[in-house]
């Protein structure tokens, strides 16, 4: 496929116009305008309550905005058909340890035709599965229950699963929320590698500013609206970002807040 080696035309992976969402009477998104060019690895940041999660849910077609428009991959709103070209990596799985789904079974769900029928043991006979499993280094986890994985292991499995669709756009929600600090650097290295190899658009949605600085080529700061955007060093020094995060904000320091809102908060 030589098309992958040519630079992609500067089409928009995500184009959002005047998006407005009210939740329980409160305005959460107040006219968000956002354009993310295809092929980039960018970060969408904002403090808790800034509307990150709501915006992400709108992008995935999980929440219908009150007004405004969303275009994904230059095609249209997030319909089930279009979402086949999108990978989504949630923060965690709300799974009870009693649920025995193994990593192998979880991955096979995305490749039903090649994974063997329900009553046969799941064997991977398909190159795409082998490739993604090797790429995310999850071979040793295959027979472990998904519910028993550590935060970092789970993230790798979730990304592996989302890559099975060969997505053009990958959305990661608080990707290092359950990962310890030494694991974080490896983890972003892995995502950067996926981004380079697969030429896809990666959007990291996070409240953590420090990781953005090193890994994203462009940063969009959200606080009800996109309050600033640009190269990481520009955005980090912007007055509007200080206001969004409050006066105690120090951009080069790790912020490990516990955010009670979680993936489905505000």
């Amino acid at each position: 496929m030589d098309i992958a080696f040519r630079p992609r035309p500067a089409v928009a992976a995500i184009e959002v116009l005047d998006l407005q969402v009210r939740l329980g009477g409160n305005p959460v998104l107040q006219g968000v305008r956002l354009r993310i060019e295809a092929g980039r690895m960018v970060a969408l940041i904002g403090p808790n309550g800034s509307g990150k999660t709501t915006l992400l849910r709108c992008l995935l077609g999980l929440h219908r905005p009150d007004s405004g428009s969303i275009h994904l991959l230059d095609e249209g709103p997030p319909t089930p058909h279009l979402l086949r070209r999108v990978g989504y990596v949630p923060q965690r799985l709300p799974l009870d340890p009693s649920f025995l789904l193994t990593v192998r079974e979880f991955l096979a769900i995305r490749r039903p035709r090649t994974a063997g029928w329900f009553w046969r043991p799941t064997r991977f006979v398909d190159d795409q599965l082998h490739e993604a499993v090797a790429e995310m280094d999850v071979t040793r986890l295959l027979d472990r229950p998904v519910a028993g994985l550590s935060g970092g292991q789970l993230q790798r499995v979730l990304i592996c699963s989302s890559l099975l669709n060969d997505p053009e756009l990958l959305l990661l929600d608080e990707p290092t929320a359950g990962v310890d600090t030494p694991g974080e650097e490896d983890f972003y290295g892995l995502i950067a590698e996926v981004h380079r190899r697969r030429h896809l658009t990666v959007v990291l949605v996070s409240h953590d500013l420090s990781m953005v600085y090193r890994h994203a080529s462009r940063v969009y700061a959200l606080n009800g609206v996109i309050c600033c955007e640009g190269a990481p060093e520009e955005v980090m020094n912007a007055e509007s970002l200080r206001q969004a995060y409050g006066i105690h904000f120090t951009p080069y320091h790790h912020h490990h807040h516990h955010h009670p809102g979680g993936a489905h908060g505000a």
Partner: protein
Amino acid sequence: MELEPFMLRALLAAVLLGPLCGFIGVFVTARRMSFFSDTIAHAALAGVALGFLLGLSDPTVPMVLFSLLVAGLILWLKERTHLLNDTIMALLLSGSVALGMVILSRLKGFRGELDRYLFGDILSVGWGDVVLAAAVLVLVGSALLLRLNDVLSLMTAHPDLAHVAGVPVRAMNYAFVALLTLTVALSIRLLGIILVTSLVVIPPATARNLAGSLRQQILLSLLFGLAGAGGGVALSYPMDLPSGPCITLTLAVLFVASLAGIRARRSQAPSP
């Protein structure tokens, strides 16, 4: 030995409903819906009472309909109010039992009928119940060929992930609840309102103790459902006991035996 016709019907119903409950139960327990199952079972009491009030000799239809109504009410209240699931279900469980008891106490000679529905009675299984159970089993079997287990697994793992993968999550949720309601309502003939949840909850729990993957858990759960329901019905006639307690105790014995399986697995596992 020749099987009495009622015994044949009861055994057929057990052999059909046991595996069905075993399969559904894996997802009911993983999705923390055991109490949901209990609530719609108790709602059936009001359906039975309404059936008798209307003068029906076989209250299957009002029983299933009333359980479906309560299941729908649970989902509707969950979407429309800020009440917790537990609260909604406790409300509807007690409400329907109270309604059923008020109606039954207005009818004469309800005492014997009540026990049949509370604890199960193999004599009460009609051909209609057997045919309905077979139809539901065929339906679920065909859905399995279309990878119902994958869809349910993904929805259990993460509803949003299922949505992005193209699963119509809301519709599938309603379909799953309808399937659970139908299965539970039909199983009430064998187990009774009070014990019916045991056939949904104990087989997957027993299977969980022995299995190493979801696929193994589902297959074992089907098997334990079959063994528990079939064995319980077979025991209940010669021992002249209500079928519900017989099935539940058979399931419980299997569960206790499976605990030995956990110990075996532990001793095999490499120490951390």
